[in-house]
């Protein structure tokens, strides 16, 4: 039955999407989690819905509009928080709901057939096209291209931004580049998991990884590993029991997290016992 599973092109595409997506999300998600910007990412993802609506209205690829809105929302929040005169969480909440509102208005006033909103809210990894895969591969290369050479600087900026500024590092250039990649990653994942479920893929594998390591590189590698594992098992469950794939992948990721934390706690308990 498993062999039969690989016979379908859409399954092969789904597997490739899991692989490429897990690498990108493993890296970007680690940045999001360690810099505690999960809420910002939620805001960006939802704001991108405005771009999606605009895309439908003016007749361009809705994902392009979503990407553009996502990047603008991310840059806007980073830019405003630079001046520290605003309450960042309030601005995020406003961006979040405003983007959704704009999207709904555009879709409502677009004449003709209303698109299937459900597919954007919940995504579907089984409908990933070859063009989507190419976009995912390009994004992965961009992320690797920034993180491999500048890994240490990104680590230091994330750890202590003020100190990085005093070290004459172009901190804001890096932050703007990174937030743009966060936005693109979130938007890319809308195809796979949908607006509502994107956050899970960028946070659950990372938190599982944090159970086992304090080393940033290892956390990234473990996140990628847990991401791939969760997507694979999730896809199989989705196929066997005929459950929507986004939901089954997230369910699996949470299950892996729970198993991980049990193992972690047992390990600590054994170590404490030995020390006595």
């Amino acid at each position: 039955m498993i062999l039969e599973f690989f016979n379908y092109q859409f399954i092969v595409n789904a597997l490739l999407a899991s692989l490429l997506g897990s690498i990108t999300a493993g890296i970007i998600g680690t940045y999001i989690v360690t810099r505690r910007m999960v809420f910002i990412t939620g805001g960006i993802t939802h704001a991108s819905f405005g771009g999606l609506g605009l895309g439908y209205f003016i007749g361009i690829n809705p994902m392009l509009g979503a990407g553009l809105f996502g990047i603008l929302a991310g840059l806007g929040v980073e830019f405003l928080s630079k001046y520290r005169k605003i309450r960042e969480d309030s601005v995020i909440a406003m961006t979040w709901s405003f983007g959704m509102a704009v999207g709904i208005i555009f879709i409502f006033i677009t004449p003709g057939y209303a698109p299937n909103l459900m597919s954007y809210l919940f995504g579907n990894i089984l409908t990933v096209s070859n063009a989507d895969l190419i976009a995912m591969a390009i994004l992965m290369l961009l992320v690797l291209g920034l993180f491999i050479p500048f890994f240490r600087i990104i680590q230091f900026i994330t750890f202590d931004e003020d100190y990085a500024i005093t070290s004459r590092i172009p901190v804001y250039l890096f932050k703007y580049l990174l937030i743009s990649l966060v936005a693109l990653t979130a938007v890319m994942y809308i195809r796979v998991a949908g607006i509502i479920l994107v956050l899970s893929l960028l946070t659950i594998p990372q938190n599982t990884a944090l159970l086992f390591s304090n080393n940033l590189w290892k956390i990234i590698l473990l996140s990628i590993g847990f991401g791939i594992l969760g997507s694979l098992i999730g896809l199989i469950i989705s196929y066997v029991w005929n459950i929507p794939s986004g939901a089954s992948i997230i369910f699996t990721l949470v299950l892996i997290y729970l198993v991980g934390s049990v193992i972690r706690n047992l390990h600590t308990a054994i170590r404490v016992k030995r020390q006595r």
Partner: protein
Amino acid sequence: MSDYLVELKDITFGYREHPVVENVNLTIREKDFIGMIGPNGGGKSTIIKIIMGLITPWKGTVTIPNQVEIGYLPQYQSFDNRFPISVCEVVLSGLMRKNGVLAHWSRQNKKLARETLEKVGMADYAHKPIGELSGGQMQRVFIGRALISQPALLILDEPATYVDNRFEKELYQLLEQINNEVSILLVSHDVGQILTSIKSIACVNRRLHYHPSNQITEKILASYDCPIDIITHGPIPHRVLPTHKP
């Protein structure tokens, strides 16, 4: 090479309409050891942040020759203590300015990190995550981060916060020792502890009054308008500074 490391000219800065520091002038030269004292809210940390480029002043100029390496210990740590980073990595981050954005650590850098950790007594903790240390231990690591680049100028904003008395004494001995090669600007609300090693004093209370070395007279204590109290008994070495000119 210029004859100064840092020059502040007519610096004014404040929040909203209220100036916190006004017309501040300060020149830091080689082998200086300046103690900066003054009341809370007097503008000590603001001046430091202006030197470090964290704040842009309303008025005035900051000149730092390009090649001058500065080691900096902020008063309040702005970091997230659950961030996954080891003690050794934190100390190495002090080399960011020297190494540039493509920083990868050489074997020499790592050796330097080990030596620096020895100096601040944290060598045994090199691979611990920063979040597992106590406040005083973290402070030592951040002092290490300021020292590792072998700076020409070391700026320490309240370094004695969180650390115990023993390390405080060790720290002042270390500072005295490196002052042979390094200029030091030390901010403290309680300068009494280190008066013997300090060469000059900057009193900051919105304005800055600079007292070069050897201005010590007993009678001036009474009119001392930097509102700090130093009460001691017995033969404690001390200095008293002249009254500020209006």
